[in-house]
Every structure is written in C-alpha cells, then in structure tokens.
C-alpha cells in the first residue's frame, strides 16, 4: 500500500504541501497518486513567478497510461520549480515526498487541506 507521509498536509486532488510557516512551502504529489498514475514520463509545472490558485490546475502529470491535471493546493506565487523531475520524471515515482517535489510557493491563502490521517483514510494510503 502506498505511503502517506505523516508530517504533510494533502489536498483532495492528491497534492501534498509541506507548510512549516517559514519561507515558501513545498508542493508535490502523494505516493498514492504516483502509484495510481503508473510510471510518470512527463510533467508540466507552473512557471517561476506565476501565481497559482488553490483548487485550480497549474500543470499536468503524464504517465505511460494517462494524463492528470496538477492542482495547486494553495494560492500564492511560485518561487522555484524542480528541474530534476522535469528532466527525469521517474523521480516522482521513486521518491514522491523527497527528491520528487514539484514546486515551491509563497502561500497567500490555503485551500481546503486534509491531515495525513484524513487523506490516508479517504484514499487507502498507509501512514
């Protein structure tokens, strides 16, 4: 069963956010989502300096089998994107909560977020 990292918060659309309040927050996709997608082969991320809106699409993730929209869990300005996952998207499958992070954002407003426990219960992940 896919892991749900306990220290993170999650959106219903399977993005996680590491919001410790100091500096920009880091956004990625959950292991549950990465596993459901299959081997990820392409990611399209928002541009640095652009504004993302909670609950709205800000990119896409493509696996061998399917394409999914990437939704931002928060509203804010993108400060950095992970170029490593753009050049090697398999990193998202291998380490979704670590090296497979997607972008960093200065949060102006959070969308509705779930605790790790709530997310795991709703999506069959393992804490």
């Amino acid at each position, binding site marked *: 069963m896919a892991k749900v990292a306990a220290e993170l918060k999650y959106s219903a659309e399977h993005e996680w956010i590491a919001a410790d309040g100091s500096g920009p927050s880091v956004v990625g996709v959950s292991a549950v989502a990465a596993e459901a997608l*299959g*081997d990820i*082969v392409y990611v399209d991320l928002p541009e640095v300096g652009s504004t993302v809106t909670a609950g709205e699409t800000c990119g896409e993730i*493509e696996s*061998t089998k399917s394409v999914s929209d990437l939704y931002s869990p928060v509203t804010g300005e993108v400060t950095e994107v992970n170029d490593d996952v753009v050049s090697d998207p398999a990193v998202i*499958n291998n380490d979704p909560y670590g090296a497979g992070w997607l972008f960093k954002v200065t949060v102006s407003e959070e969308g509705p977020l779930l605790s790790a426990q709530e997310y795991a219960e709703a999506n069959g992940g393992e804490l």
Partner: protein
Amino acid sequence: MTENYTALYEEHKKLGASFTDFGGWQMPLKYSSELAEHHAVRKAAGLFDLSHMGEVWVTGPEAGAFLDYALVGKLSAIADGKAKYSLICNEDGGIIDDLITYRFGGEKYLVVPNAGNAPTVAAALAERAANFDVTVEDASAATSLVAVQGPKAEAILLKLTDESQHALVTDLKYYAFNELTIAGQDVILARTGYTGEDGFELFLPNEGAASLWESVAQAGEEFGIVPCGLASRDSLRLEAGMPLYGNELSLERSPFDAGLGPVVALKSKEGGFVGRAALEAAKVSGSKRKLVGLKGLGRRAGRGGYPVLKDGNVVGEVTSGQPSPTLGYPVALAYVDVEHAELGTALDVDLRGKAEPFEVVALPFYKRQK
C-alpha cells in the same frame, strides 16, 4: 456485467498485481512498474496471463469451408500446424473482431478471439454454422492461455521440455504450433504473440495453469523473466504497430481503412462469405481515412480520442498513443484523411488544447533485430 477471473487470479494476487477490468475480466494491469515489464520483454522475457482470450473449437467434415464462409480469410488453405490472422465481419463489412485461427487438420480448427468479444464471436460462429456439417464449441471458460515473450523465451521453455521434444520448440516457425509437454503439462505451443518479440503462447486446461505459470517463472528467473500486465502488453503491441480491437478496429471501420486489406480474401475465395458484398464495395469506393503511425516530435503523447490537425483543421483522430518506452519518443496510431496519410506528412495532435507536432511514419514503430 459480472466479473470474470482467470485460473491464475490467485497467482497475480500473490505477486501483488494491480488489477483492471478488461473485457469483463479482472486482469493484472501491472505487477511493479509497467516500464520495467516492457523493457524486460524487449531484453529478456515476460510472462503474461492471457486466459481472458477466447478459445472456440470448430470441428467436423466442413470445418474449412465453414470458416471460409464465416471469416474474411481463406482458412481452409492454411497448412496443418499453422496459424493465420483473420477477421470476422458483419454483413456491412464492419469488424466484429480480429482473431487467430489454428489448423490442427482439415476437420479441426481452433479460433481465438479477443476477451470481450469471445461470447459474441462464439455466438456468431454458431449462427453461421447452421448450414454446415460442423460443431462449434466455446471452450473459453475451461482454457487458459499463458504467453512467454522475449528473446529468452525459447531458452526458458527448453529448460522445461524433455530433450526428446526440444525440436518441437526450436524448429517451430512464426505462426506455427505443436502439441507437446512443457513442465509436465500437455500444451498447445504456438510461436505467436502481441509484443513484436520472439515468443510463445501456451494453451492448456485451467487445471494446469497455475503449475505451469510457477514453473515458467522459476525456470525464467536466471534469464530475467518478469510477470507482465496489460499495461506493458499494450505498450509493446503499440510499438509493434499491432491493432487493438476497440481502439483501431471496430464495427465502424472497414478492414481496408485499418490497412488489413490483404487479410480479406476477395480474390482467392470463390464462394460467398459474410460481409463479402459490403467489403467488395468498400474496396472499390476506397477509404476516406486510413490508419497511420505518428511519431511525436515533442515529449508529450497523443492519446486515444485526441484530434489530429493539419493547419488547425481536424483531419483525423488518435486511436492509441503513449510515450514509447523503447524508442524514447511519443508514438500513436491514428485514422487520418487519406490526403494527409503520406509518410513524412507533418501533422499536429491537439493535446488538450495545445497543438503539438507529429509526423506520419512507417509502421511498425519498433522492429526487433533478427
């Protein structure tokens, strides 16, 4: 629709497969990574459960003549021990299914349709048999089908075959079959497949399927065999340019649109067959769209249903597409207006609102080195 389970379902569960519904069957989609499974078949070997496919026996004095009438090919002309790819069409020339027919003798044939179509094909065959001295028996539920595909497939099966029967494996030509004993099971061993690699398909009664599966997995370990799900099966067949019923083939498409004109025996069959008049007319009138291969020039893949564009106008539709694991670029099969179907034609695929460049290329996308 009730779910069907193959005799190997418990094996798949043990291996941690994720399942998907395919033609009413719960089938393994993948066991670990579909990319790893794909590469294993290209470089070593893969083990597939294809027991969802149908097996319909046609026996009796008029078996050959009956199949010539029921299918579009001339099946009576196959040699004993050989197989032939064919289609079953309706009176309008629409494709009910594509299938492989194995000839055991003049009075005994095995017809193998696709999973979701097996009941329809079995019923159509039974109906068409009314005026022939033949028996049509749908043995799908009692028969398992296991495929061993990849460059190491032969070596793996030889390990499980008595030396006295090795030649039955090694001398087997593509689209030919033998009956022999492998890993203690009496099987029909065919050198056929849906991956573009050398490989075999093994038919046997359900009772022996799990034992055979485990024997092949164990014998293949030193060669790097891995169990493979339908995800890799689909990417492998796509690279090999092989059509999938429901994607490239359907009741709405004629065999000529799909590039399968040579499969329709209009010349070599003198008698009538189901769909003949409509297919003759379709051949004369020509195709408006035909099936082509598309190579993506960017990184993003076209998917089934995406529009194909020329100068912003819709000129076709993708039927299957994904990034090719072996080639490293997106590939797709698409029906395209014939005036834009020439090799080298630059086209775009509408990827969710953004036009991405593709080029018409020759099929198959991938051909193994012999």
